[in-house]
């Protein structure tokens, strides 16, 4: 595959603040890449640097093979969908769509034809004469996307485009954006703080924290093999349980510390006595009869959504458990918990790296 966007050694400083630290990132043509991380992690700065709305301090940024470090935004041929949509309030939907064509000198009739065509694919045909203030949130969102589509840019940049929509519409637009991406064969970069959006929409997820890329890869690879404790805790919902542990004396087990020590045979070598953090996803824990289970713990909280039941145990640290269906336990009861040793994620206490 060809790299459509390529960053090598990119740094961004705001005065003393180091916003992006040695970013190396290659985005393939036709791929959907999600930049995800907590607020302040630099994902929006990175996206704005791709657009040219921020300049990068050092490093190289290439789009479609050309170095873009000093190229102004209007010559980069990328389109951006803003969180606020940034629709031109004094223009009708049609004028919003054709703006980029008109400023480039396309004749009005041709631009209108292009707008009509894009509007048909995004379901805006009946709204072309409206002003943005007369549209609902979802419709504004569609106009913002259509405005990007009409230009056939080298890349689409999305800056948290769904965060102003209500939950139901957000789930719907998630699919719509992804379908649109596939239909256009576009290259998309999508910034979000919502890991579910990243996991469900993207081909590739880039997890960022404090200006560095913690891990990048396919969504399920990140879920199955998080590179460090941060990624492990960030990807997945509810978040992964972390349990302090030590390497067992037999060299192939870990001793979990959940109030009382609990030895688990992991089936691969572990340095005896090594300080560890063990990660275990709530959905990988199952209920078992207490006398046969690996863990016997009291339950503190039971929350049920009908489809699933969320347990919180009265241990230190407390464990979150997700079970399908009703579960049939109540707060205060003691339950047996089981899990596959292969589902444990081992992290070094100091470096927080995966072992």
């Amino acid at each position, binding site marked *: 595959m060809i790299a459509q966007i390529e960053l090598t050694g990119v740094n961004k400083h705001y005065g003393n603040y180091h916003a992006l630290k040695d970013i190396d990132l290659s985005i393939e043509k036709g791929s959907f890449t999600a930049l995800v991380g907590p607020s302040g992690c630099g994902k929006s700065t990175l996206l704005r640097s791709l657009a040219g709305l921020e300049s990068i301090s050092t490093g190289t940024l290439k789009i479609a093979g050309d170095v873009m470090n000093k190229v102004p935004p209007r010559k980069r041929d990328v389109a951006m969908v*803003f969180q606020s949509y940034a629709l031109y309030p004094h223009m009708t939907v049609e004028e919003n769509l054709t703006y980029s064509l008109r400023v480039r000198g396309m004749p009005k009739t041709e631009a209108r034809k292009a707008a009509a065509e894009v509007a048909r694919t995004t379901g805006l045909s009946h709204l072309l004469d409206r002003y943005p203030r007369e549209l609902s949130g979802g419709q504004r969102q569609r106009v913002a996307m259509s405005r990007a589509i009409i230009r056939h840019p080298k890349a689409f940049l999305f800056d948290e485009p769904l965060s102003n929509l209500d939950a139901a519409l957000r789930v719907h637009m998630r699919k719509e954006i992804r379908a649109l991406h596939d239909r256009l064969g576009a290259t998309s970069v999508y910034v979000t703080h919502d890991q579910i959006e990243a996991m469900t929409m993207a081909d590739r997820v880039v997890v960022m924290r404090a200006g560095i890329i913690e891990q990048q890869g396919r969504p399920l690879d990140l879920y199955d093999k998080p590179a460090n404790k941060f990624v492990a805790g960030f990807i997945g919902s509810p978040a992964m349980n972390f349990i302090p542990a030590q390497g067992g004396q037999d060299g192939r087990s870990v001793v979990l510390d959940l109030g009382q020590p609990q030895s688990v045979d992991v089936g691969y070598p572990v340095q005896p006595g090594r300080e560890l953090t063990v990660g275990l996803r709530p959905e990988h824990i199952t209920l078992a009869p207490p006398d046969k289970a690996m863990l016997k713990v009291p339950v503190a909280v039971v929350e049920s959504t009908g489809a699933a039941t969320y347990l919180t145990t009265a241990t230190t640290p407390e464990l979150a458990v997700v079970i399908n269906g009703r579960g049939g336990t109540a707060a205060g009861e003691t339950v047996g918990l089981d899990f596959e040793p292969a589902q444990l994620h081992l992290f070094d206490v100091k470096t927080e790296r995966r072992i």
Partner: protein
Amino acid sequence: MRRILSSIRDGHGFDILLVAFPLGFLFLMAGLPLIYNAVMSFQEVDMFSLGTFSRPFVGLKNYRDLFAQPETWPILYNTLVFVVGSIAGQFLIGFGLALFFWVNFPGASWLRGLFLVSWVMPGLVVGAVWNWILSGDFGVLNFLLRESGIISGNIFWRSDPQYSLYAVIIANIWLGTAFNMILLSVGLSAIPGDLYEAAELDGANAWQRFWTITLPMMRSSIGAIIALGLIFTLQQFDLFAAITSGGPNNSSNVTQYWAWELSFRQYDFAKGATISVIMIVFVMFASVVYVRSTRHEVRG
């Protein structure tokens, strides 16, 4: 009595009270003088009938007489030149300054505030200062123009009929520019920054962004400032009194100054009122433009 009191307490009567108070105030302090002025323009008024309200009704005679006077049309024309020249100058320089300070360099907002100095000065003081600047023999303006080679001989700004009106316009532009700038700055800062980012990504250069984003988004601000400018220039009186007194030979006379001159210098109150009524029509028009343009604000 009790019904009235309880209606005030439960809200409906209170609403009427709230409306009645400002309406009463406006009627007393603005409505009555306006009506009195309009009535006077249809009456024969002289020093002896000044004290009564029942004066001989003369229909449109005052209007006919006024337009029969040889100086009327030149003075109306002067007013037009004064209004258009002042507003154009104030607006263009004010908009230029507003855009300049919009760049937001260090100290920009602080410096912008200092520009209000011109606006807090009384018109008569501004007039006195400009008298010195415009002075024919030792004025600083003549000095600058002469030294930079634009003129060869001194211009007697205040006493040359060719220039006297422009002398007042220059002073008035200086006086009103700061107000224009502040109002336009507010309008500029209300434009969301991401519109410019979107336009930049859409391929618009700075010039195109100005014409397609800034100006249309400023439409209501511009409409408001021009309407207010029309009202302010039509009531500009101090500068004429301080700089040219409408002279020489009415060459810098405008309707607002002339109305005062007729009424309080020549004691021809009917004519003074007649001119005022004509001006009221123009100011009403400006007010309608102002109200409409502030109502049609475009906000995303």
